[in-house]
Structures are given as structure tokens and as C-alpha cells.
């Protein structure tokens, strides 16, 4: 783009590109606010993948069959891989991964509220796959259409993997819901605890959602929180019913006129409480991440020392973690 254009002309051209459905790529001109909003969203998404390893990871050691153990390790590995991939997407906008991680560890960055709830029984792992990955897919499928190229491309592959998680979770819970009394209790107990938090994953009601208008004009966000939430509810309610599970909402009903499932009121006070750091597991999640970070300090120092030495020798290293 020729340099003599004014900021407003550039902005007009930029918005026209988005309106035409073009993707914005790393070297392209973009408004500072677009860059800032994207870094915020992508890094929150990356942090969610990283913190999201913890609740499910805690059950790897207890998985009750070889196959379930394998599937769970694979799933948590997927999440970590998504995290790395998303940090790269944020870096393509000029962010530094270390700064983003520092913000997370300092408690200054957000990540998905859902991971501030505890995993209390083995069936939670399946319920998370079904509900949490199911809800995440809704959001991420929308984001495959996002205007920023690296983010939208990452979402396509991430969605494919999340879909697999969702299917595995659904398969597991469906099996347990028809299994022994003990398994049925586990499955129902998991649903009772994960139902409402999973609905909150779509974020606050549209009326209370800041940022939304600009994000939508710039094609970073394509559907409203409430619209996505309703889509999710309409799909997941019949699935849970088909599995023979009881959704913990006495007000839940099907509305013939609109064709939608309508839930009772969501406890938004709880949502804000958790987002402000006072959920059941906020402190524990950050503690775990900080411990990993602090315990790893000497390792990172050794890596840096070795890398600087071997670059002097001119050795080419292709081992992970070398930067």
C-alpha cells in the first residue's frame, strides 16, 4: 500500500477487504486496535488450551483402561499442541510468547472460565469432551471464518481435532449412561456439575458484552454470544436426552413457536465471580502453572546456555524447543 495514504483511507481500504471476505495476513496493514483485539483473543484462546490441560490431565493416571488412557493422553496433547500453535498465531501479530505467558502467570490474562471448575470424577473427562469441546467447536467453527488468516487457518485444523474429542466424550458418556449403576451415577453427576458452566462458556449475554460491535465489523467475531449459545443448546439437549441423562434445569422446555430449547436463568453472578478470580479452582490452576514455570527455570537456562554454545560451533539443531 502506497505510503501517502492517510490513516482513514487505509482503514477504509482495510474494512473493504474484510467486507469482500479477504483474509488479512501478517505483513498487511491493519489498525492498531485490530491487532490489539486479535492478540487479546488469540492469547486468551492459547492460555485456555494450556490451562485446559490441567483438569483433564489430572485423570490420566487414573484412566481405567488402556484405550481410555491413550485417548486421554492424546487429547491433552492436542490441547497443548493447539496452545503452541495459537501462541505462534499471536506472534505473527508481533506479540512475544514470553510476555503473554508472563501475563498469564501474573494473573493478568484471562482464559476460559470453564477450567476454573474441578474435575471430581472420572466421567468428568468424558463430559468435558462432550460439552466443553462441543461448546468450543461452536465458537471455533465461527472463527474459521475470521478475517485474520493465521487464526482462521489454525481454527480449521483445531476444529477437526476438537470434533474428534467431542465424539469420544459423547461415546464415553453414552456408554456410561447405559452402564452399571455406578457408571450411571458418575455420568449424571458430571452432567449436573458441567451443564451450567458449559453454557457460560459463550460469554456474557449480548447486552453485557463489551467489544462485540467492533469485533463483528472487523470479522473477528461473526456471531453473538447468545446466538452461539442457543445453537449449542438446541443441538446438545436432544443428544443428552437421547443418552438418558437428566439436564439439571427444571425450567428447560422446548418452545414450539421458535423451535428452540429454552433454559432457565443462567447464574451470571457466578460467571462474574469466577472471571474475577474467585472460582473454585482459579488459584490452584495458576499455582500449578507457576510451579511448572519456576521448576523449569534451570532447564530453560541450560537450554539457552547450550544453544548459545552450539550456535558458536555452528551446529544445526532441530530439536524441539530450540528458538
Amino acid at each position, binding site marked *: 500500500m502506497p505510503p501517502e495514504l492517510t490513516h482513514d483511507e487505509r482503514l477504509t481500504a482495510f474494512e473493504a477487504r474484510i467486507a469482500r471476505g479477504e483474509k488479512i*495476513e501478517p505483513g498487511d496493514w491493519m489498525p492498531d486496535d485490530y491487532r490489539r483485539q486479535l492478540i487479546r483473543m488469540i492469547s486468551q484462546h492459547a492460555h485456555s488450551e494450556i490451562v485446559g490441560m490441567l483438569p483433564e490431565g489430572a485423570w490420566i493416571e487414573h484412566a481405567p483402561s488402556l484405550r481410555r488412557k491413550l485417548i486421554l493422553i492424546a487429547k491433552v496433547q492436542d490441547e497443548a*499442541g493447539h496452545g503452541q500453535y495459537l501462541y505462534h498465531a499471536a506472534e505473527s501479530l508481533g506479540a512475544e510468547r514470553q510476555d503473554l505467558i508472563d501475563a498469564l502467570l501474573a494473573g493478568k490474562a484471562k482464559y476460559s472460565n470453564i477450567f476454573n471448575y474441578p474435575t471430581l470424577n472420572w466421567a468428568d473427562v468424558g463430559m468435558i469432551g462432550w460439552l466443553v469441546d462441543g461448546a468450543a467447536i461452536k465458537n471455533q467453527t465461527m472463527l474459521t471464518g475470521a478475517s485474520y488468516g493465521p487464526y482462521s487457518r489454525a481454527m480449521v485444523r483445531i*476444529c477437526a481435532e476438537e470434533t474428534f474429542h467431542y465424539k469420544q466424550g459423547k461415546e464415553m458418556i453414552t456408554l456410561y449412561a447405559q452402564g452399571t449403576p455406578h457408571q450411571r451415577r458418575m455420568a449424571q453427576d458430571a452432567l449436573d456439575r458441567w451443564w451450567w458452566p458449559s453454557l457460560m462458556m459463550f460469554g456474557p449475554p449480548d447486552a453485557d458484552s463489551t467489544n462485540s460491535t467492533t469485533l463483528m465489523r472487523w470479522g473477528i467475531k461473526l456471531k453473538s454470544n447468545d446466538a452461539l449459545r442457543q445453537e449449542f443448546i438446541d443441538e446438545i439437549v436432544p443428544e443428552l436426552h437421547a443418552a438418558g441423562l437428566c439436564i439439571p434445569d427444571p425450567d428447560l422446555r422446548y418452545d414450539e413457536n421458535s423451535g428452540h430449547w429454552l433454559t432457565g436463568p443462567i447464574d451470571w453472578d457466578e460467571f462474574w465471580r469466577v472471571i474475577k478470580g474467585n472460582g473454585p479452582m482459579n488459584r490452584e490452576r495458576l499455582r500449578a502453572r507457576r510451579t511448572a514455570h519456576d521448576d523449569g527455570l534451570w532447564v530453560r537456562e541450560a537450554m539457552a546456555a547450550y544453544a548459545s554454545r552450539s550456535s558458536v560451533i555452528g551446529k544445526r539443531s532441530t530439536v524441539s524447543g530450540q528458538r
Partner: protein
Amino acid sequence: MVVKLSPSPPAPPHSGAQAVPQGEGNFPEPNAPTSPLPAGEGRVDMAAANPTWSEGRLTLTSDAVWAALHEVMDPEIPVLSLVDLGVVREVTVSGDVVTVTMTPTFSGCPALVEMQRLIEVRLLALGAASVAVNTVLAPAWSSDWISDEGRRKLKAFGLAPPPVHGGDVQIMLFDVVRCPRCNSDDVLVRNTFGSTLCRAIYYCNRCQDAFEQFKPL
């Protein structure tokens, strides 16, 4: 000192010298999933794989079965069929009983059971009365078995296809990797282990963007 622990593994059978497809500079947009939650399975696409009817009885041919399997996609790479992935080794049809022999990509592939289920669902929908899916370990799957079409689809999906190595470990580990978007070889490895067993993470200096490679094995 280079530590040599074992000789190169033997070349797998079927490892034809396929060239890794080189893109022509077009950047196909990846196929975005249209429905967030997976669609119903076992859809019957009669146009793609038409079993023949003779004397009022359904006759399954092995061609029809292969064609149907061509529509069964990898659970984590929805553009790549199990046939293009090279995991379907053999199909035998005896009347309306079908036996499919497959091999896992990696020993710890978490998708194996799901692949077996998808095959069964698809072939029952095709009209098979019973379907057996056997798993064999030998000959061991090699990424060389991914078809040319599979390689094109991987690339369009944003995954750099693995180099054809013919069993040569040096090529397997150190061949030039190209960005699936721009074909540049100005790339850096960021992690030899990616989000799944079969992937590595790279960074393309030209696109200033990360990409994943389907790892050679």
C-alpha cells in the same frame, strides 16, 4: 560422534517413488467444516459407490467397497480418506460379507477404534450384511503410503505432506520441508512433536506463520 544404534529400517513394500506434489502457487482455502457438531454418519452415497443388483439380490463388489472406503475420512483430518492415508490394506468380499484389513499409522494411534467403527458403519450402509475390520501390524505403515491425492489434500488442508523417504532414515528425518501455503523452504522446525502423534510444528519465514507437517514415518 554420531551414535549409530540401528541400521535403516527396510523399505516398505508399495513404496513407489511418488513425487511430493509441488503446488503451482495457488493457495487453496482449507475446507472449513460447515456444521460445528459432526454430521450424522453412515450417509449412503449411491452415486459414488454403486453396488449392483442382480436377480433382486444385492451384489457387493470389491470395487464398490473400495469406493465407499474412499469416503471414510480420517477422524482428525476430515479431508483425507482412510484409503488415501494408506491404512486400508486389503478388502475381501464374499457374498455380502466384507472383511477389511487395516494397519495403524502409529502404535499409539488413538483414532484406530474410531476408524474401525466408521468403516463398519459405512459398509453396513453400503449393504454389507456383516463387516469385519482386522488390524495387522505388518507390514508396518509408512507415510510413503499416503497417496498423491492424499498429499494434495493434506497440503490444501494446511498440513505439509511428509517427504517420500523409501525407508531411508536420513531422508525421513532431515529432508527439506516446504510451507504448504507458499512452498517456501525457508522454514524452521519449532517442535518435532505436534498436537497429534503424526505432526510436527514448523514456521514459515515467508508467510510469517506457523504450519504443521504430517510427520514422515
